[in-house]
């Protein structure tokens, strides 16, 4: 399963897909990126006349790249057939935020697996901006069930 296959298996679509490319992926972690487009739907209201990417969206971006893409990779042998799809649920997260992300900014997400047991994936995740400055970091856990 290559990186394009993984992105195609994601259970998201626009306007809620926050993965552009996966740069590296292995049993232990993943590195990927996303550029926030100028016209993302949430900029209209967050904030009034002052568009800044919401923290929940930064968390979502780290979860999509860091947990869901990695989870699909880890389960690649089971989901190589077309019929089986990954169903995901966020179960917990604990994130600290350091810098804002504005429209047109590119971010890179790094995720390291803490454990993947009994369909629960827990990762240490962090996001950096194009200057390689820390944007946010923490831990995210989720369940991945194949149906």
């Amino acid at each position, binding site marked *: 399963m290559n990186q394009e296959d993984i992105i195609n298996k994601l259970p998201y679509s626009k306007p809620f897909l926050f993965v552009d490319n996966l740069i590296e992926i292995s049993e232990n972690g993943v590195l990927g990126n996303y550029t926030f487009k100028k016209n993302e739907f949430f900029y209209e209201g967050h904030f009034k006349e002052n568009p800044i990417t919401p923290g929940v969206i930064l968390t979502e971006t780290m979860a999509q790249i860091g947990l869901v893409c990695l989870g699909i990779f880890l389960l690649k042998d089971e989901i190589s057939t077309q019929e089986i799809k990954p169903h995901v*649920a966020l*179960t*917990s997260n604990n994130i600290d935020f350091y810098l804002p992300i504005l429209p047109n900014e590119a971010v890179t997400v790094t995720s390291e697996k803490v*454990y993947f*047991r*009994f*369909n*629960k994936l827990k990762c240490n995740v962090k996001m950096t901006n194009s200057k390689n400055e820390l944007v946010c970091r923490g831990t995210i*856990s*989720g*369940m991945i069930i194949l149906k």
Partner: protein
Amino acid sequence: MTKEEIIIKLSTIVKPYIQNEEGFKNISEDTDFMNDLEINSANLVDIVLDVEDEFNIIIDNDSMDKMLTIKSVVEIIKEKQSSE
């Protein structure tokens, strides 16, 4: 380790994950994690990982499927510890 000692240790492990306080007050051998304590499946994984550390055992998929009540966990712990 006696059954009672195991149950005391299990109570400490499950406490952070329970949603039903009443069920936790009445914890016994017959307590069902999901029905009586309203522990979700994600937190059940956390409990299993804590049980592995606390009792120095490895829980495999077959054992995980059986870990539904305090009684079944006590049995699994005793069985794994005696086989080592």
